[in-house]
């Protein structure tokens, strides 16, 4: 049985890794460096990392409390709320982009409100951030919720009886103990934000993020011109992800 399972598993692993590995390894380093130094590419990469970072910070501020409430309290309709949070995973991202435009677009509701204070979303950094936030915040919430759930209720109880207020208990016990999962959720959210394409291309074709640039080059010049950009993007995303993950797992025996 093990042999068959191993075989099936290896086929799948190969399917997941070979295309990426082959593309990365077959690239000419000289062309990669040239591409990397291309001003348009560099700007797109910087924009992507920066926008994803902003989205993650916003997600952290608003998502962590929600994760805590979902982990530690019980209320009617909790499962419904959990379903809502997973919504962005299920909705096609191009449709999600349309939905966001429908609220944040220049002529709509929030778009008008924010427009009055000079913040516009269509084809702007703001639009990229909300698109990234929408599609990647569930990863942060899920991970942080799991982290808070793993914190023993009794530790929080003990803190309360020792005189800690709810706030003190959260800051000194729950949060530090769920820290690993929260960081891990942040990394995942950032990585997902960097890689987002469908919602971003609808909300903001320009300024161009790296995934959109890959698509544009592919559409305009074809596969061979899109490849170096794709490779650089993959390398950056993977490096950040692997490095932070190693950092996080070090010393933890799971």
């Amino acid at each position, binding site marked *: 049985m093990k042999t068959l399972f191993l075989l099936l598993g290896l086929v799948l692993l190969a399917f997941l890794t070979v295309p990426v590995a082959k593309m990365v390894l077959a690239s000419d380093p000289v062309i990669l460096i040239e591409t990397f130094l291309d001003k348009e590419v560099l700007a797109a990469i910087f924009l992507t990392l920066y926008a994803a970072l902003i989205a993650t910070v916003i997600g952290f501020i608003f998502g962590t409390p929600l994760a805590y409430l979902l982990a530690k309290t019980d209320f009617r309709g909790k499962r419904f709320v959990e379903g809502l949070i997973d919504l962005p995973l299920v909705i096609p991202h191009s449709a999600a982009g349309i939905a966001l435009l429908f609220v944040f677009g220049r002529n709509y509701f929030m778009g008008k409100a924010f427009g009055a204070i000079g913040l516009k979303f269509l084809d702007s950094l703001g639009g990229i951030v909300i698109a990234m936030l929408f599609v990647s915040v569930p990863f942060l919430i899920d991970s942080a919720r799991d982290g808070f759930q793993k914190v*023993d209720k009794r*530790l929080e*109880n003990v*803190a309360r*009886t*020792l005189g800690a207020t709810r706030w003190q208990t959260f800051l000194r016990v729950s949060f530090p103990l769920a820290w690993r999962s929260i960081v891990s959720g942040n990394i995942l959210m950032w990585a997902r934000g960097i890689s987002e394409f469908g919602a971003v291309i609808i909300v903001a074709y320009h300024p161009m993020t790296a995934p959109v640039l890959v698509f544009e080059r592919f559409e305009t010049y074809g596969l061979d011109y899109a490849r170096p950009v794709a490779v650089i993007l993959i390398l950056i995303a993977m490096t950040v992800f692997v490095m932070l993950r190693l950092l996080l797992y070090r010393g933890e025996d799971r």
Partner: protein
Amino acid sequence: MISIRNLCVEIGDFNLKNANIDVFDGEYMVMVGPTGAGKTVILESIAGLCPLTGGQVLLRGMDVTGLPPDKRRISIVYQDHALFPHLSVQENILFGLKVRKVEKKEQERMLEKVVSLLSISSLLHRSPPTLSGGERQKSAMARALCVEPDLLLLDEPLSALDPKGREDVQEKLVNIKRSLKLTTVHVTHDFEEAIALGDRICVIGEGEVKQTGSPEEIFRRPDSEFVARFAMARNIFTGVTVVSKEGEGCQFRTDGVTFSAMEGVKEANRAVVRPEEVVVSVNPLEEGKMENVFSGQISGISDKGATLLITVDLPPPISILITRREFMHLNPVMGMMAYVGFPASAVHLFHENTL
């Protein structure tokens, strides 16, 4: 004094009805009941950690039912794993003082006090996951005492420990009891532990308080079959009471034999004779020394190591606890004739509601 009035708690399957418990100042109360009897829930209700469906908790006459746990001055020590794993032992102990923003000097004074009381000075800079069970338990107790609570709640403090740790922690509990005179509620499923430590004992079972009293009372004068069984009073007889004419003493009739008892209880339909209060012999017992003397066949010998249980059919079977020393002297054999005796004072009568 802490008073629990008509406490009702419902959590999932668990349902506690109208529990009334009083613990006097400086008293060490042991609450004992089978696993799953909801003892931890009662402690959490007292501490304000779990929502009540009814009832009140009074602390020194003041109703604290509405107070949040951090305003109650009630410390709780859980059975295990309740040290903050990300803090050192010292940081754990000082946690309560730090969140209350007690000044540094006072912190040091309290730390020194509880550390010497529990002899844990060598542990202060260790991390909880590296401690043994007993060390963890002592650290958790130090943390609970450091905030000078009005009431200390202990949730099965000895159950998760190996024999060595248990002895050590039990000794520390006796120390605390003697030197601090702190009002304490200790819950356990172990009846021996209750007898050894409790000023008073409260038996919990089937979602209610079954009986509260001194260890002697619970042990020798249970007022229900549940308590009698829980206190391992193996011999519980069903029958009827016949009050004797003189008014002093009474008779209890069960299954063909009649026991003499000291005091009558109205409508008593159960008699309890503790197995360690019965004398067994292979020779006829001297009459007159004991009010109840019977004979019968030995129908069971059960070896428990240091002690053994001998069962003799009177006809109703009665179990007698003897030590190995007595066993070797007696040398009983299955089917052999044996004589058993017990004083009237060993017969305790009570009324059991049977519907």
